[in-house]
């Protein structure tokens, strides 16, 4: 990653902007310069909103000049995954069908970011409708991994991960349905976190699988990730599944350590991983042990069923969520002699192969006569998994495992083998099915020199602990590197 001059951390930058030491305009201009420099090679961005970003920065500088408080993320440039609705700024979801769609409203998280002083500088590339693990399923071309442009950044939030990893921005938002924040965070060597289901409003997040989708932060440090989480979490009356009691974490308690905590190394998320990945998880366990945690090995065999359940539930919900792209009201329309043929022609032209595959899978899973064997069974497995994880958390406070079975793979390596691509999500899916938070934090690199992240899993509402454990791991890495 030579040649990049990364921005300071988000909180550091915000402090400088708030004190008047640095202007928001300067912070944003520098970010835009880095985008101009690196993005032609990386293609992390689908849309860069230079003009509105500079306007917003000037607004913050005026507020500072007038003695106002522009918020905890004052002047911090941020990138948004392109499935987060931004008023008047096109929101494509990486799809031809929404290539020219300009939402008339902002997602709740976008409103929260603006209120906190963050400045959106663009929308990031993603697998179409968040379906994928490599960002190769974008209708607008793939994103490259900043560590090796021949490799994928992971996905589906590959653009957001690459934008932070390359230093273009200190913060980005992604969405995580089966690992779409944590897996690219691991492959790009940044921190990525999926909150408790309902902790962050989904209003304005274009739905993939509604019961699994959560918005979460990307950052270079755990502290910045926690600060971004604090800005976007909280109850939203516009989202019925929003938790009434989702609370921000206490940043002052981030360094409280893990002394006396019980940490379980989750066998299923270690043993079947690539050797260099497994070794990094063991090393992380040692770090926590030395930091005073009591580390044990724990097995939750039900975790193995997560992948199959996920690949029925997520496509089933997606088949319904994506029905609305019918050419009638917005997005692409391919004309045909009657409505049914117009619907079919529009969807045939507008959706890519992976989206079509999942719509068909999901439609089948919900069909009369098959519902119980597929969707119904998957929901029962989900319940079994939730119970099994609940039992594990009776014994330990947090679990440790791999985030991704391997380091970043080469572009094209898995595009012809969907099942192999689906297996990239095996470590991350359990937390989506249980609705619990999990974080991926970079701890080292593999035999190929590419980054490896480990994953910390906690029960629902465990955000304070998940950040604390991640901080200990992050510190250990910083002290050895």
């Amino acid at each position, binding site marked *: 990653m030579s040649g990049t001059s990364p921005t300071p951390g988000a909180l550091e930058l915000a402090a400088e902007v708030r004190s008047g030491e640095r202007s928001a305009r300067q912070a944003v201009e520098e970010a835009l310069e880095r985008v101009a420099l690196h993005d032609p090679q990386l293609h992390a961005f689908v849309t860069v909103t230079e003009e509105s970003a500079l306007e917003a920065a000037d607004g913050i500088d005026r507020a500072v000049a007038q003695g106002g408080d522009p918020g905890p993320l004052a002047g911090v440039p941020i990138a948004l995954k392109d*499935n*987060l*609705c931004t008023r008047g700024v096109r*929101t494509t*979801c990486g799809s031809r069908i*929404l290539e020219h*769609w300009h*939402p*008339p*409203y902002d*997602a709740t998280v976008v409103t929260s970011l603006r209120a906190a002083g963050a400045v959106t500088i663009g929308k990031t590339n993603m697998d179409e409708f968040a379906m994928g693990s490599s960002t190769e399923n974008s209708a607008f071309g793939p994103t490259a991994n900043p560590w090796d442009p021949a490799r994928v950044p992971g996905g589906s939030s590959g653009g957001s991960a690459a934008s932070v990893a390359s230093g273009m921005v200190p913060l980005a938002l992604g969405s995580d349905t089966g690992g779409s924040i944590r897996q690219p965070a691991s492959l790009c060597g940044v921190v990525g976190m999926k909150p408790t289901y309902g902790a962050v409003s*989904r*209003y*304005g*997040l*274009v*739905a993939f*699988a*509604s*019961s699994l989708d959560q918005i979460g932060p990307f950052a270079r440090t755990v502290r910045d990730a926690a600060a971004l989480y604090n800005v976007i979490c909280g109850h939203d*009356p*516009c*989202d*019925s*599944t929003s938790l009434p009691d989702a609370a921000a974490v206490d940043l002052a308690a981030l360094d409280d350590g893990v002394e006396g905590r019980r940490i379980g190394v989750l066998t299923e998320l270690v043993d079947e991983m690539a050797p260099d990945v497994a070794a990094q998880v063991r090393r992380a366990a040692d770090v926590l042990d030395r930091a005073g945690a009591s580390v044990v090995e724990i097995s939750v065999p039900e975790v193995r069923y997560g992948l199959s359940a996920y690949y029925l539930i997520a496509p*089933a*919900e997606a*088949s*319904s969520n994506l*029905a*609305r792209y*019918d050419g*009638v*009201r*917005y997005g692409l329309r391919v004309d045909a002699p*009657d*409505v*049914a043929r117009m*619907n079919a022609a529009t969807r045939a032209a507008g959706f890519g192969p992976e989206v079509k595959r999942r719509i068909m899978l999901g*439609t089948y899973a*919900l*069909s*009369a006569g098959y*519902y119980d064997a597929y*969707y119904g069974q998957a929901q029962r497995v989900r319940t079994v998994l939730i119970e099994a994880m609940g039992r594990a958390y009776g014994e330990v406070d947090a679990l440790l495992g791999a985030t991704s079975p391997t380091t970043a793979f080469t572009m094209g390596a898995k595009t012809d083998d969907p099942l192999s691509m689906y297996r990239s999500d095996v470590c991350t899916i359990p937390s989506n099915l249980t609705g619990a938070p999990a974080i991926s934090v970079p701890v080292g690199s593999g035999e190929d020199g590419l980054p490896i992240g480990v994953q910390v899993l906690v029960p629902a509402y465990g955000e304070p602990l998940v950040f604390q454990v991640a901080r200990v791991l992050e510190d250990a890495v910083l002290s050895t590197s």
Partner: protein
Amino acid sequence: MTPVAPAGDAVPQGDDVEWESVIGLEVHAELQTVTKLFCGCRNSFGDEPNTNVCPVCLGLPGSLPVLNRQAVELAMRIGTALHCEIRPSSFHRKNYFYPDMPKDYQISQYDEPINVGGWLETAAGDRVGIVRAHMEEDTGKTSHVGAGKRISDADHSLVDYNRAGVPLVEIVSEPDIRSPLEARAYVDELRAILVATGASDGRMEEGSVRVDANISVRPKGVEELSTRCEIKNLNSLRSLVRALEHERERQVALVSAGGKVVQETLHWDEAAGRTVSMRSKEEAYDYRYFPEPDLVPVDPGAEWQREVVAGLGLLPAERRARLLAAVGDERDDAAVDQVRTVVVQGLDDLVTAAVERGAPVGLALARVANEVAARSDGGVSVDPDAFAELLTMEAGGELSATQAKTVLAELLAKGGDPRTIAAERGFEAMSSDSLADVVGQVISENPGEWGRYLEGEDKLAGFFIGKVMGATKGRADGKQVAAELRARRG
């Protein structure tokens, strides 16, 4: 939703078989909430197309539904009035493509409806079981423009999403109804309940209340159910009765000739007076119902239910009983009919108010049932004091019936004081002497007609009444003129 058993083999044949209809109805009622079921858009009929819309009811990407508390309360009121059990409930998605459905799925209640297992008693005393009364969202409205009016031969279609997301309650009856007229009585009573509970305005002509009918026929005495058909597009009570009569005859003729009824969905063509097949059972949609992940279950707890029951006013049966008791000795068939009409339209409080202010009950009932109820164009509101005053003037002979109706029309249209309106129009009671003078005048001007009237040509009374009305510019009371004519004939 009506349970169906296959037709038995032992279907009696021949002309002497007495046939019985088995009818179950699915009634969709739009709730009169302030806002839509899942968003803050106004729930209002007749506004400019696509003005009451937002990201949620347009199904824009990223939008999410939030359940309307008032809609749940109105659904609970309906359930209570229909003697249902009110239960914890949840929503499902019903998936199918249609341009007037913004998300291409409808959020509806499926296996956990809010109201289950009740009954309704028609004004005639027949009891009809209620399977369920569940909540769901309405669709938009499509109009097809071009050669024909059906989607198949239109040049293009226009969609108005103002109605998309309007709350509905679907009330599903047991197949307990045995004739088209009983079906009508069921819908009448249900509309009265919807109006009395404040849940809906009950108007079929505006589509606030829409009826689908399931009908099968069987020889009287046979217990098991035969194959049924579902009839859609029943936009009025007249359509409901005509369609059911037509379909009953079609099925009887078919089965009598040795044929078999095929389960299908039929479209009622009101102009042609017949049913047309829309789709057979084999072509039925697979709606791929699954639990709506964007909503959480609704638990109408005991306390909430108590509040709703406490806020429920008198139900139609009680309202009819109350009004009939007030009518007392004047109760005849006409009065019973008028009481039903008045209660169905939710106008019984107006009658009661007028009577309390000294108006004669018979006159108040007749005027409300005939004049006020006829103005069903919505928002009928008339000040009870003014209405009572007008009735008192008419009863006291200060205004003729014709004059009183004219004043009432103006009261309904614009409001005001009946005495002022009467004075502005120059209405004043004619003394019987001056009326007699005018009658004498008219007779002398038309000796030929008078001669024929004297010889027994009674219908010429109308001729003379018309002439007197003309001469008095409508101030005369038709009944008094008729009495004067009869008196002169001796």
